[in-house]
């Protein structure tokens, strides 16, 4: 009976502790990033840091609420939650407000909410529910198609909102599929397609076709024993398909995409130099982090973060402030906290009795991991610049709420891991 009374019974305090640590670090660094001498109080509601406190407190309430709800609810209502989310994503296309180029927000007075953040939670739930069904076989085409649809529909809707960054994050669910046993061949094919797409934009078309031809010839001649007619035809066929694909990519790039989209892709792939725009931000971000040294410049002592060198200082580029003011020690701590949290979630997920809970856990880990890699990667110049927040650290209501719910549903499922839900 004790279980029924205390919602914290059996809770994994390590996950909760890591969560709280990250949220707190976020708040302190938002304060430092947008510190305004005329509004010195960290509680000043006219500033981002004051408002972030509201988001933190409401998130705590949401976390508690998530824990109070019966664990069975998440399984039973996953599809309903998912479908409602799709409707909301469609609604935002028509009724939404455009903020910095993306029509991804509902505006309610001064308050705006971004449904695509919550779509991550809904998709993770739906994916867990679907793949968690008994006797599901990820090797059957039907299952693969349905899985692609579950992940793909929100991606398409969010792309239509012109919020490419958020949409890309959904590709992280590939990690879930990998764990759930999708065949290596499909993973490999997917990888080939991605590599080929990038190469066809990167390299001269003739050069690329030459390289492909060389690969085909090498594969045909490398194994004398397997040089059957069937094999030669297969490889030639694959070669033709690959060449066709290269032309198709070029065609879409040249004819279908708008100039500004081409531009963004080019900058993303490093084909075009853009030291004034994105390149400048990354360089400034690296200077901020690099100038932090071993121990950092100290709280509120960052000089680089005091100037508007990067547009999204309290949101997408919050890690700069960590790096500059807390140095190598602070940044390593934050990186470690993320690694610990994500690995902890995976280990916990593996211990779940139901497939639903396990797959959902992997979904949470995948989403957090994707954001972590892309966001911190871009601030230190190892990944392309994609405008997405750093979970728990970045300023923003929608994003903190969504990540809190995402994590605490798993915390709740984990509490009940010994029960069949």
């Amino acid at each position, binding site marked *: 009976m004790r279980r029924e009374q205390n919602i914290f019974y059996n809770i994994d305090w390590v996950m909760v502790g890591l969560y709280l640590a990250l949220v707190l670090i976020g708040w302190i660094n938002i304060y430092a990033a947008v510190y305004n001498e005329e509004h010195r109080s960290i509680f000043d509601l006219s500033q981002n840091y004051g408002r972030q406190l509201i988001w933190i407190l409401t998130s705590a309430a949401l976390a508690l609420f998530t824990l109070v709800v019966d664990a069975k609810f998440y399984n039973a209502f996953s599809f309903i939650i998912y479908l409602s989310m799709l409707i909301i994503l469609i609604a935002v296309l028509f009724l939404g407000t455009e903020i910095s180029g993306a029509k991804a927000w509902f505006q309610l007075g001064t308050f705006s909410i971004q449904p695509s953040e919550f779509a991550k939670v809904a998709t993770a739930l739906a994916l867990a529910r679907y793949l968690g069904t008994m006797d599901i076989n990820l090797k059957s085409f039907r299952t693969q198609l349905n899985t692609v649809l579950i992940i793909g529909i929100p991606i398409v809707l969010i792309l239509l909102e012109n919020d490419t960054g958020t949409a890309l994050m959904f590709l992280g669910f590939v*990690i879930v599929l990998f764990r759930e046993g999708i065949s290596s061949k499909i993973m490999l094919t997917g990888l080939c397609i991605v590599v080929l797409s990038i190469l066809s934009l990167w390299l001269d078309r003739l050069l690329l076709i030459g390289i492909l031809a060389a690969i085909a010839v090498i594969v045909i001649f490398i194994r004398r024993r397997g040089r059957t007619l069937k094999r030669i035809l297969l490889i030639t066929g694959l070669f033709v398909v690959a060449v066709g694909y290269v032309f198709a990519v070029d065609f879409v790039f040249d004819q279908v995409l708008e100039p500004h989209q081409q531009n963004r892709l080019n900058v993303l792939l490093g084909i075009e130099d853009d030291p004034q725009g994105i390149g400048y931000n990354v360089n400034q971000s690296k200077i901020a*982090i690099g*100038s932090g040294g071993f121990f950092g410049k100290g709280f509120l002592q960052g000089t*680089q973060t005091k100037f508007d060198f990067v547009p999204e200082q309290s949101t997408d580029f919050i890690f700069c402030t960590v790096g500059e003011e807390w140095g*190598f020690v602070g940044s390593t701590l934050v990186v470690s906290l993320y690694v610990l949290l994500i690995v902890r979630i995976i280990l916990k997920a593996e211990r779940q009795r139901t497939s639903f809970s396990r797959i959902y856990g992997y979904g949470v880990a995948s989403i957090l991991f994707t954001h972590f890699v892309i966001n911190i990667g871009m601030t230190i110049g*190892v990944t392309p610049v994609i405008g997405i927040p750093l979970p728990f650290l970045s300023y923003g209501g929608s994003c903190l709420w969504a990540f809190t719910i995402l994590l605490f549903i798993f915390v709740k499922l984990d509490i009940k891991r010994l029960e069949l839900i």
Partner: protein
Amino acid sequence: MKAQDEQRKLIIIGMILLVGVIFIGRLFYIQIIDKSYILSAQNNVVRVITQYPARGLVYDRHGELLVYNEAAFDLMVIPSQVKAFDTAEFCQLIGLEKTEIKDRLIKARNYSMRKASIFEKQISKESFSFFKEKLHKFPGFYVQSRTLRYYPTRIAAHTLGYIGEVGPATIEENPYYKSGDYIGISGLESTYEEVLRGKKGVKRVLVDVFGREKGSFQEGKFDSSAVKGKDIYISLDAKLQAYGERLMVNKKGSIVAIEPSTGEILALVSPPSYDPNLLVGRIRSTNYQILSDDSLQPLFNKALSATYPPGSTFKSLNALVALQEGISTPSTSYYCQGTATVPIKCSHYHSTPLNMYRAIEISCNPYFWQTFRSIMVSRSDIHDAYTIWRKHALSFGFGTRFNSDLFNESKGFIPLPDYYDKYYGKNGWRAMTIRSLSIGQGEILATPLQLANFATIIANRGYYYKPHLIRSINDSIPDSEYRKKIVTTISPANCQVVVEGMSRVMDGPEGTGRWYRLEDIAICGKTGTAENPHGKDHSIFVSFAPKDNPRIAVAVVVENSGFGATWAAPIATLMIEKYINGEVKRLNVEENMINSNLINP
């Protein structure tokens, strides 16, 4: 757990740990090993300075400079870098009140603490050089150089247009423009904005705590230099333009002159005009207000935007349509009963009957009413006949815009048959109903530009090039659409008939323009007197010269002045004389025109 699942779990965890290690390694490198980042950040402030390119210059067809740039300096402020300063000295330097300075600082702060905003626009060169020495006393302030337009000849204000600060809508729409940038607002400045503006550059300099520049940031790796705007050479003839503006002093109306062999516009005069230098710099907004409040509308470009009934000049068109449709021949004659003629009387006394040549020479109303009536009854349904007539008018460019590089053209008006259906009912109108069209009155309206183009077509015997202003951009000749011959519906032979008639207007014994014939230049012209319900008639004249191998086509409209032969004809012939001979011998005519004040007689 299956072996495969276990293996994949380990792969995933391994991947996460690997990313963690890569990130920490990278952090170790940029934070501890590579010292260059620390140097970059050392107590330095990066200031982004926009490099404004010089705007392209504008020259006339002979290379005379019409628009150039003069340096100006904006005082900028970055509020977050402002420290306490000697306001008394500052006030003295900049010539502002203390309270004003306070207000502006608050305004700048509200815009952005860290982004630069303009504190004072276009400070003079003197106060700039004085200020520059003292600048270190005022951290957070710096000077940004800009260019202003200057118009040495003071002519062609409407054609050249003006520039001004971009509005919020443009900034929203086009990311190139930032608040405080200049953009062409009217005339050529607007049409050729993208050519003239060049490309802005960016310079990032390191600035110490006292606001002193300490050299470029990262050896200028992130700088881009400004690219100068391209110069344009336009088709105006500055001398002819200036002469036209002199002739039209104290008159309302316009002069449009076109080179028939190219469609290049030689002069576009739209009095009353203004000195283009009035709309430059700090004085712009005050002067703009004054000019737009002026009841004579000096900002309105009548040459392109005003529409008038073409009056008798349109008789030439009716003659052409009748010839082309085989309804009339040059020798087709009609009777005229002078002032007693019904339904349109004749205002001239002449022998009768008369053929087409003489009808044009004398501008006989009854003749063209008969001609027009014949066109309208040539089909059993007047709708068909009218549509044919309208087709010819449209092929001359009436009722449509040319859509070349001219700013704010009006379409004029040639009604659709539906228009009359609406007024008179489907079967409620006949030739009689729309008889005013026969003498260029009634519903139809044309711009002076269209009238000049009309003269061009007759001069060319049936074709024209889109009237336009651009000749070349830098050294390249742009846009071949201006070099495409547009052929009208009228054959060269039929045009020749009207050319002969228009020649007799000047040279015939009874020609309506015979008082202004020139000994050495064969001018063809047609007078027009457009009735105007709001006041005195408009005086109109369309003409070209010489008769063979024409070099100039001119249309003149003088508002509320009287007969076409009285004002528009002498002005047009003076323009022709000036352009072809380079000087005017008829000094008394010239003086008479320049000195006539038709606005406040």
